[in-house]
Structures are given as structure tokens and as C-alpha cells.
């Protein structure tokens, strides 16, 4: 176990046991924020991939 992971584990375990309301809010906020960030990241990656793929095809003379 790396020191960073050990510290994170300690924090998660102690914080969730000591501050239930703050922990519940943190869970909701963390899950929602992660979802939004991931949505944005995959959206960006997918748009870029589709754009580059169709540009490559057009450059190769494909009339689609």
C-alpha cells in the first residue's frame, strides 16, 4: 500500500465514522462531480475522435 493510498484510506474511514452528515454530503458531491467531469471528458474525446476520423476519410478522397 503506497503512503498516499494509506492516507486516503485513513481519511475515508475516519471521516465517514466521525462526521456522518458531512460524509453523506461529500459522497453526493463527489459522485455528482465525478459524473459531470467524466461526461465532459468522454464527450470531448468522442467528438475529437469522430472529427479526426471523418477528416482522414475526406482527405483520402471518400465522398460520404
Amino acid at each position, binding site marked *: *500500500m503506497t503512503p498516499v493510498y494509506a492516507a*486516503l*484510506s*485513513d481519511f*475515508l*474511514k475516519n471521516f*465517514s*465514522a466521525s462526521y*456522518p*452528515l458531512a*460524509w*453523506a*454530503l*461529500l*459522497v*453526493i458531491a*463527489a*459522485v*455528482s462531480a*465525478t*459524473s*459531470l467531469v*467524466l*461526461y465532459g471528458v*468522454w*464527450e470531448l474525446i*468522442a467528438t475529437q475522435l469522430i472529427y479526426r*476520423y*471523418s477528416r*482522414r*476519410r475526406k482527405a*483520402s*478522397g*471518400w465522398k*460520404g
Partner: protein
Amino acid sequence: MFFPNAGVDVNPFLLLLLGLITGVLGGFFGIGGGFLITGGLLVFGLSPIFAVGTSLALVLGSSVVSMLRHRRAGNLDFKLGLLLVTGTVPALLVAQWLAVRLEESGSAGPVIRYAYVVFLAALGVFIIHDSWRNRHRVKAGEDTVSTAALIRRVQALRIPPHSIKVPGVGTVRTYVALPKSGIESVSVFVPMGMGVLVGFMAGLLGAGGGFIVVPALIFLMGVPTEVAISVSLFQTTIAASMGTFLYSLSNHVDLLMAVIMLTAASIGSRLGVAAIRVVIPSRVRLLYGLTLLGGALAVGLKQVSSADPGLGYLASIAAVVLLSASGAICVLLVALVFLAMRKRLGPAP
């Protein structure tokens, strides 16, 4: 990898796989997939209460991503979603409270669980039967369901009061137009009442309600399949956020595990929503019916195994059946998406 809150060691690749399957099915069918994730997490060694709490957190994240995708694709009827949630949420809370009391009383618990299996199977059979009956119309390019007469009657319902006085606003009619759902005018009490019914059944049966919302909107209100799926995701987001909050308060959510699964679920959601555009609505409903039947089989096996300690192996068979069937549907959907993309973009240079 050790997860401190749940106190178990789980291979993160298995969590990513479970997250991916959940995301694809959630994006495609509009269900939270709580029964699938909970089953998977139990197999991975989590205690039942942690499995439910963590699965709710994943359902919340996954449904947010899928809902945003559907919104971008123009499928989300926000107005219908709000009306539905107004009825679903209070009914869900009352029914969950009632379910706990019935469970404590002893005899009602098994009855409710078996009723859940029968209901799931009956719904699955009805949806498959409907797709089979309408297969000729589908071939002719029509998208129709066998409850068209019932839908017309439900949409034409006139429920009093027909208008209400709101202080500062004046008289407001209790009928709304839902253009995105293809409904010219409907009483607000219809979706709200449907929400109460769905929430009560879901709460009593111990589920989030996604699997009832989609068929109810399609077969009772005549909402297009893709809009019904996105509205169900909206409802699931609200219900799952409440559940996650309550389970987190009692410290039964493993945040780290949920975030790891969510990473894969967000990719899965994208693929699931993309598959909606590729698969025709009647086929979506057919696959939905098959998934419900698979779910009924798995839940039924689990109930039988809990009744007799000697049949404990049936619970493992149930989890394997559920995960295999869901995995197979995911592979099929992903293949369809890639085939459609190749067709749209043309052959490689």
C-alpha cells in the same frame, strides 16, 4: 485492492467490468440497474447493506451521465419528468416505510419478494408478446404498441379540478402539452398519479422504479420509447440521490469503489445511449422484455436459495445468470453501435 469503508479486497478490473455493463444497460434501457450491481457486489464479497448503498451511489452517477447524454440527443422531456417525480418520490418513501414494517411482521416479506418475481416476469412476457404481435407493422416502418386504445383513453381523461388558483399568478389550468412526448394535452394528475403508482410499487418491491416507469410511460401514456427511457433516468437520478444520501448517513457506501465503477459506467452510458439511435424502438422493447425475464429468473433463484440453506448455491447461479445475460446484451449493443458507425462513416481508406 483494499477498500477501507467496505473492508474488503476486490480486483478493480472486475469493478470496472461491472461498471461498464451497468452503464451500457442504464443508457440503453433507462434503468438504474440496482439489482445487477447489488448482485455483482455481493459476489465480490461485500455485505448486503454495503452492496445496496454502494450500488445506489453508482446508479446515481451512471444515471446522471446517461441523462445528460439523452438530454443532448434531445430525448429528455423535463416537464414530464418533474410531474412524474412529484408523485414518485413521496410514494416511494411511504412504500419503503411500509415494506420495512411488513418485513418486520414476518409473513409478508416472502410474499412481497415472490410478488416481485411474478410481476417482473409478467411485465417481461407482456412486452415480448407486444413486440411479437406488432412485428408486421414494425416491418412496414410503423412504431406501434398494442395498448393504443388504452393510451387514447388515458390521454383523454379529464380529472377535476380543471384549474387551480395560485396566489400571485392567478388561475392555472391543470392540463399541459408535452410536445416532446407527442402529447397535445393531458391532465397533470395523470403523470402524477402514475408516479404515485410507480413509486408505491417500486418502494414495496424494494426497487428504484426504473423498470416500471419505462413500460408505464410507453404502454399507458403513449410516450415514445427513447423519451420514456430518458424520463426514467431523470426519475432514477432523484430516487438514487435520496437513497445514496440515506445510506451514506449510516456509513454504508464505499465511495472509492463507487468512483472506480463510475469511470467505466460513464463510457458504458455513452455506448448505451448511442445504441438507442441504432436499434429500432420495438427491438429496444423486445430486449427490455428479455432483460426483465432474466432479472425475474435471477431474483427467483435468489429467493429460493434464501428459503433453504441447502440451496445456497442457487444464489451464485443467479448472480452468474444475471451477469452473463447482461454481458451478452452489452456485447450485442456495442457491436451494433460499431457496425452502425462503420456504415455511416464508410469503408476504411
